[in-house]
C-alpha cells in the first residue's frame, strides 16, 4: 500500500504527482512569459498577434487546470478504491468513541486526496526556475531582490507555520469535543425531552460551539497572519522588481516585454509558494487520517481453543488476574456494578489492551452477547445465518428452544432494523445467542444479559445452555447469572 502522507516526493508512488506538479509549474511560467509578451505586443500596437497570444494564454491556463483536475480526480478514485478495500479489516476491533466510524469515512477521503500536497510541493519547486527568468529578463538586481525576499520569506513562514500547528491541534481537540457532545445530545434527545432539558442541551451546544469557534478563529488568525507575511513579502518583491525594471525601461535598457516578463515571473514564483503554503495544513489532516486508517497490531495471543489470562491487569482491575478456561468450562465473573466486569471480558476478547500480562484467545468460534450489541439491518434469516447455509427448520427449532416462537419469528424473511426496533432487549439478545449457536460457536462470552429476561425466559435460556455441555461459557453478572452451577467463579472487588 502506498504511504498516505507525501513524505518523499521521489518515492515511486509519488513520482506521477511530482512530475505533474513540476510540469504545471513550468507551464504556468511559460504561459506567464507568453502573456507578458502578448501585452507588450498590444502596447506596441500589434493588435492581432497580441490578442491571439492572449487567447492562447487563457486557453492554455484553462486547459492546464482542467488537466490537473482530471488527473487529481483519477488518482483520488484509484486510491479511494484501494483504501476502501481495507475497511473491513479496520473494523475487527471496536473503535474508541472519538474515532467513530463516520470519521473513518472522513479519513478515507482525506487520505485519498493526499497527493494534492505532493503536486503543490513539486509545483512550488519547479517555479524556482522563475528566478532564472527574472535574471535573464530583469537583470541581476531584480534577481537579487526576488531571491533575497524569498530567502526571508521561508524562515518567517516556517515559524508562523509552527505556531499555527499548535493552535490547529487545540482547535482539533475542541472540534472533537463539540462533535462528540452534539452527537450525544442528539442521540439522547428523547431522554433530554423527557426531563425538560432540551434547552439545556441547546445552550450547552451553543457554548461548545462558541469555544470551538474561538479556537478556530485563533488558528485562522495565525494562519492568515503567516500568509500575510508571505503575501506582504511577495507584494514587496513584485513592487521592487517592477520599480527596478521600470527604471530600466525609462533608461531604455529594457524592452517592455522583458520588463513585463520579469514582473510576471516574480508573481508566479511567489504565487506557487503561497499555494503550497495555504494547503500546508493538509499535512496534519493527512497524518490524522493515516493514524485512523492504521490499526495497531493486536497484542492478544490467538491460538488453540482456550481463553487464558496470565497476570492480567486492566484499567479497572489493578490486581493481576490469572485464569485458564478449558473447553466446556462455565465461568461466572461477578462483582458490583462499575467494578470492571465488562472491561475484563473485553480484554479477554482482545478489544481492550491489557495494561500488563498476557491474554490468549481462540481465533474464531467465539460468540459475544452484550446487552448493547445490535442486530444487523436485513432479514431475520440474514441475522441468524450470516449468509451461511442453514436450513430454515433448524433455525426455527432453535428459536423455539429460546422462546422466540410468536408470530413475529415464524417468517424468517421478516426484515429487522439495525436498532432492533420492534424487538425487546430480551428478544434481541436471544437472537444474538441463536446466531452464535448457529455459527457453531465453541465459546460464548455473555455480558450481564440475564436481567433483560423475565423468569420464564431465563429458565428457557438456562436450559438451552445446559443441554450443550461442550460449550465454553464466560458470563459476567452482578448477582443473577444464567449459569447456576459454574465450574469456576471470579469475584471482582472494587
Amino acid at each position, binding site marked *: 500500500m502506498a504511504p498516505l502522507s507525501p513524505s518523499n516526493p521521489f518515492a515511486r508512488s509519488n513520482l506521477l504527482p511530482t512530475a505533474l506538479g513540476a510540469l504545471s509549474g513550468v507551464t504556468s511560467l511559460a504561459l506567464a512569459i507568453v502573456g507578458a509578451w502578448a501585452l*507588450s505586443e*498590444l*502596447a506596441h500596437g500589434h*493588435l492581432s498577434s497580441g*490578442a491571439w497570444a492572449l*487567447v492562447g494564454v*487563457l486557453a492554455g491556463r484553462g486547459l492546464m*487546470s482542467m488537466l490537473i*483536475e482530471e488527473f487529481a480526480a483519477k488518482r483520488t478514485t484509484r486510491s*479511494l478504491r484501494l483504501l476502501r478495500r481495507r475497511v473491513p479489516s479496520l473494523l*475487527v476491533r471496536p*473503535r474508541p468513541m472519538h474515532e*467513530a*466510524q*463516520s470519521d*473513518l*469515512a472522513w479519513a478515507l477521503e482525506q487520505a485519498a486526496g493526499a497527493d494534492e500536497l505532493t503536486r503543490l510541493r513539486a509545483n512550488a519547486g519547479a517555479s524556482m526556475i522563475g528566478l532564472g527568468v527574472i535574471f535573464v529578463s530583469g537583470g541581476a538586481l531584480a534577481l537579487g531582490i526576488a531571491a533575497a525576499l524569498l530567502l526571508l520569506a521561508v524562515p518567517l513562514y516556517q515559524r508562523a507555520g509552527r505556531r499555527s500547528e499548535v493552535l490547529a491541534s487545540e482547535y482539533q481537540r475542541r472540534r472533537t469535543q463539540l*462533535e462528540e*457532545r*452534539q452527537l450525544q445530545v*442528539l*442521540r*439522547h434527545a*428523547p431522554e433530554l425531552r*423527557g*426531563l*425538560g432539558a432540551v434547552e*439545556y442541551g*441547546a445552550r450547552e451546544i451553543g457554548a461548545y460551539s462558541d469555544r470551538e*469557534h474561538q479556537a478556530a478563529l485563533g488558528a485562522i488568525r495565525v494562519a*492568515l497572519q503567516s500568509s*500575510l507575511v508571505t503575501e506582504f513579502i511577495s507584494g514587496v518583491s*513584485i513592487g521592487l522588481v*517592477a520599480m527596478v525594471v*521600470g527604471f530600466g*525601461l*525609462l533608461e531604455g535598457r529594457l524592452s517592455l516585454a522583458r*520588463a*513585463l516578463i520579469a514582473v510576471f515571473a516574480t508573481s508566479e514564483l511567489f504565487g506557487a509558494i503561497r499555494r503550497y503554503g495555504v494547503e500546508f495544513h493538509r499535512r496534519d489532516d493527512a497524518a490524522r487520517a493515516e493514524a485512523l486508517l492504521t490499526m495497531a497490531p493486536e497484542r492478544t495471543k490467538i491460538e488453540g481453543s482456550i481463553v487464558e489470562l496470565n497476570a492480567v491487569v486492566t484499567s479497572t482491575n489493578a490486581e493481576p488476574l490469572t485464569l485458564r478456561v478449558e473447553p466446556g468450562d462455565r465461568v461466572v465473573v461477578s462483582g*458490583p*456494578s462499575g*467494578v470492571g466486569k*465488562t472491561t475484563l471480558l473485553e480484554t479477554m*476478547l482482545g478489544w481492550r489492551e491489557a495494561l500488563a500480562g498476557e491474554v490468549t484467545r481462540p*481465533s*474464531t*468460534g467465539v*460468540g*459475544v452477547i452484550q*446487552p448493547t450489541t445490535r442486530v444487523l439491518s436485513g432479514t431475520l434469516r440474514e441475522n441468524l445465518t450470516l449468509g451461511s447455509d442453514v436450513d430454515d427448520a433448524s433455525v426455527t427449532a432453535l428459536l423455539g428452544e429460546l422462546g422466540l416462537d*410468536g408470530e413475529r419469528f415464524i417468517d424468517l424473511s421478516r426484515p429487522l432494523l*439495525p*436498532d432492533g*426496533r*420492534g424487538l425487546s432487549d*430480551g428478544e434481541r439478545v436471544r437472537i*444474538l445467542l441463536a446466531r452464535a449457536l448457529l*455459527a457453531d*460457536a465453541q465459546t460464548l462470552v455473555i455480558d450481564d444479559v440475564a436481567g433483560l429476561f*423475565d423468569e420464564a425466559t431465563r429458565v428457557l435460556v438456562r436450559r438451552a445452555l445446559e443441554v450443550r455441555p461442550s460449550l465454553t461459557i464466560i458470563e459476567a453478572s452482578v448477582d443473577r447469572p444464567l449459569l447456576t452451577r459454574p465450574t469456576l467463579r471470579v469475584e471482582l472487588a472494587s
Partner: protein
Amino acid sequence: MNFSSTLRRWLARARPSKRALLSALTNGAVATIANLGLLVGAVGLLADSATRPGLRAVAVALVVIELVAFARSPLRFLERMSAHRLGYDAVSTWRRWLVARVGGLDYSRWRAYALGDVLERSLRDTDELQMLWLRGVIPLADTVLVLVLGDALVAVLAPFAHWWLVAAQLIIIQSIAVGALWFVTRDALRRDRTLRRARSAYRAELLELGAATPTLALLGRLERASERLAAPQKALQDAESRARRARRYSGFVVALGGALSVSALVDRPRAALLWTVVVAAYCLAVMEALGTLRLCFEALVAVSGGAERLESFEHAGPAGRLAWPTHCTLRAEDLTLVEDGRTLVEGLSFRVEPGRHLGVAGASGVGKSTLLRALAGLDDVAHGAVTLGDVRVRDLAEAGLRAHVAYVPSEPGFAHGYALDVATLGRGDAKLAGELLSALGIEVAADSWFEDLSRGELARVALVRALVTGPDLVVLDEPTAGLGADETRRLLRVLAGRGVSVVVASHDLEVLGWCDEVVTLEVRA
C-alpha cells in the same frame, strides 16, 4: 425543489447582525477590488510609461503600485476574518436550532431519524452551512461587483464612440458564461443529491458494521462484513464518477468564457494602446472571476443539499398549550398503542392517584416502554387518551408538562461531564442532587468528572436527574437493570422518600412487589 428559496430561508435563520454582514461584504469587496486594481493598474501603468516616458509620471505610478501591493494583504486578512466570524456566528445559531428541533420531535419520528446516520449527518450538514457565507454568498457578491465595476471601467475608458458596444459585448459574454455555469450547477445539484444519498448509505453501513464487525470477526464471519459493504461502495463510486463528470463541464465553461472575453479587443483599430492593454489584463481577471464564481456555485450546491436535509427536522407536530392542572391523577383511558403497524396494547385503562406507585409488568417486547413513553407525553397513542387531571397529556404546554413529569428511558445515557452538571442538567437543586447521589451510593465531590459510568451507576444518576426538579410524577423504564439486590433496595427507598407518583416498568420482582398496584401487559396472539 427550490434551491434558492431554501438558501434564503437559511440565511434568514442565521440572523447575522447587520454590522457583521456589512463589514464582511465591504471587506470582501475592497480586497477583491484592490486585487483587480493591482493587476490591471500595474500592467496599464507600465505600458503607459513605456509609450509616454516621463520620470515623474512613472515615479507616481510606481508608488501607487507599491501602496496597493502593500495594502492588499491586510485587506485580504480583514476579508477572511470577517467572513469567518460571520460564518461561525451563523453556525452556532444553526446548531442550537438543530438541537431544539430534534429535542422537540416525537419519539417515533426521532427513532426513524436515529436509524442509520441521520443524526451524524445533521452535524456535518450544519457545519457545511457555514460555507454558505464563506465560500458562497460573500465571494459571489464580491466577484459580481468586480465584474460590474470592471465592465464599467472598460466602458468609461473606451476612447471612441462605440464604448457601449464594448461594454455590451463584455456583459453579454460574461452573462452567458455565468448563465451556463448556473445551468450546469443546477444540474449538479441533482447529482449532488445522489452522491449525498450514496455517501450516507455507505456511512450508515460503515456505522452499522463498525458496531457489528468485532462480533462477526470473532464468530469467524468477517467476510460477511465485506459482502455487506460491497453494494453501497459500488453505488458510492458510481455517484462519485458522475459528480466528477459534472465538474468537467463547468471547468470548460470557465475556460471558454475567459478566452471569449478577449474578443472585446478584436477590430478596435482606433482604440488607444493603453486602453487595449488594460482590457487585455482585465480579460485575465475575468477568467479568475469566473473560476471564483464556479467555486461559489459549487459551494452553494453543497450547502443547499445539506440544508434540504436539515429542513426535514423543521416540521414538529402541533404543540399543546394548556396549563398544568391543579390535581394530577394520571389516567389511561381505553388506550391502544401501535408500533410499526403492530398493535401492542389494546383497550387498556388504569389510574394512578397522586403519590401512588404503579408497576408495569409483562414479557419482553410486549409494549411496556411504548406505554411509558405515551404516559410521559413523548409519543402519540393510536386510540384512547392519557390524561393528567382532566387534561390530555398531549394538550399540555411542553414546558409545564416537563416541569411536572420526569421520564427515564431503559438505557439512559448522556452522562459525561462534571458530576453535578450531569445530575441536574441545568435544572433543579444542586444540593438535593448531591444528597440523592450519596443516598444511592454514589459519592461525588462537586468537581468530579463522570466518564465511562457503568450501567448500574448510569441508572442511579438518571434517577437523580429525574427527581432533582421535584416532579409530581416520574415514569421509569427498568430503573434497576444492572443493579444488584442491595442497590435496588436502596433505590426504592429513595424513591419512596420523595412522595411522588411513580409508574415503573420492570422485570424485577422486588420492584413490582414495592408497587401499590401492578398492570401486567399480555402478549397478543
